[in-house]
């Protein structure tokens, strides 16, 4: 076998390999020309969109996009060809595509420009992210329901209310907590509110800010707040952050807090 033949054989082997890659990758590949006409799609595309290859080749790529994108698509290409400003080429973005049966598909599209001897084409790589979107949606919903997990304010004694905080406190949750605390203080006519933070994992500037807000709000209603259960490392952080809890009545444990509440309301705990 001559050297040339050998080279040609390697080339065709290489082509076959590339073709095999094109046919077998999980992501969809669409190649369009400068007018937006589809020249080539790989099997991943036909599977994802539900079209036959023959139904797509020769069609404008708009067939794969939802209508609101379709009406703009020609101008997208034209803009790029006129101005050279890349809005999507070389980048990826999440958008919605349209399957044959019109169902929307969430995809991540990245477009590259290829130029073979002056012949310009655009290559779109399409990744189906419906599952990821669904997971995102579930995570979001769960976060929300976690937020809604109520932290009850309990009437501990005639004019003492207890609220035990568990979990992280962010701005959204804090607003709900403060509201519930105030409503309970008001409806129970409480003079003392015990805010127990034993279950709050990290006490940082933000959490401290929310706690101080709760204290200030309860005081406006005329109730004194006792803050209990700040752990040693929490105390360390608060002082290091320069957060002033001087004006807040803090007690180490819930037990000490209850004792203090009883003292304030003029009751006495006796052990028998």
């Amino acid at each position, binding site marked *: 076998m001559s050297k040339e033949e050998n080279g040609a054989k390697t080339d065709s082997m290489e082509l076959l390999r590339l073709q095999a890659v094109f046919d077998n990758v999980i992501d969809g590949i669409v190649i369009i020309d400068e007018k937006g006409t589809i020249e080539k799609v790989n099997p991943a595309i036909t599977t994802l969109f539900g079209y036959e290859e023959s139904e797509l080749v020769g069609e404008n790529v708009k067939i794969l996009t939802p209508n609101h994108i379709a009406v703009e698509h020609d101008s997208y290409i034209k803009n790029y060809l006129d101005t050279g400003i890349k809005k999507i080429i070389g980048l990826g973005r999440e958008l919605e595509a349209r399957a044959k049966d019109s169902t929307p598909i969430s995809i991540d599209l990245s477009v590259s420009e290829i130029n073979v001897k002056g012949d310009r084409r655009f290559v779109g790589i399409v990744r189906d992210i419906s599952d990821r979107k669904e997971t995102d949606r579930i995570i979001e919903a769960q976060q929300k329901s976690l937020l809604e997990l109520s932290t009850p304010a309990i009437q501990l004694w005639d004019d003492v209310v207890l609220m035990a905080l568990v979990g992280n406190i962010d701005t959204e949750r804090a*607003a709900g907590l*403060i*509201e519930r605390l*105030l*409503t309970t*203080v*008001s409806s129970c*006519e*409480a*003079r003392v509110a015990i805010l127990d933070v034993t279950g709050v994992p990290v006490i940082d500037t933000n959490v401290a800010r929310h706690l101080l*807000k709760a204290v*200030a*709000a*309860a*005081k*406006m*209603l*005329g*109730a*004194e707040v006792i803050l209990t259960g700040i752990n040693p490392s929490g105390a360390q952080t608060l002082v290091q952050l320069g957060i002033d809890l001087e004006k807040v009545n803090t007690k180490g444990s819930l037990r000490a807090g209850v004792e203090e509440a009883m003292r304030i309301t003029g009751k006495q705990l006796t052990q028998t």
Partner: protein
Amino acid sequence: MKIPILKRGNILLTSLQEDLTDRDIVDLQEDLLDIIGETGSTGLVIDVTSLDRIDSYLSRILSQTAAMVGVLGCNVVISGIQPAVAMTLLEIGGALKNVKTALNLEHGIDMLLAGTNIES
């Protein structure tokens, strides 16, 4: 509209209503100072139970009044701040400064009579 100021022993009572104008509250401030000057009352309860909102102006005037009255040797308690009002005041940063607060009129009077107060 004149806001009535009631007297019970050494304690004065007044209640703010919803349809309060800026003018009314300034008048009230003057009336309170006059009456305390005349009678030498040692306690004042301003009840705001029926207010759904307290704006920054009103909260400033209330804090101011408390300070002025304090100079005259009279303790002030603001009673009946609604939960929603407290939240709004916090949001606008208009928390009533250095004013004693009570849950309701009864508590307010009790506080003044007992002389044990909760500082806000």
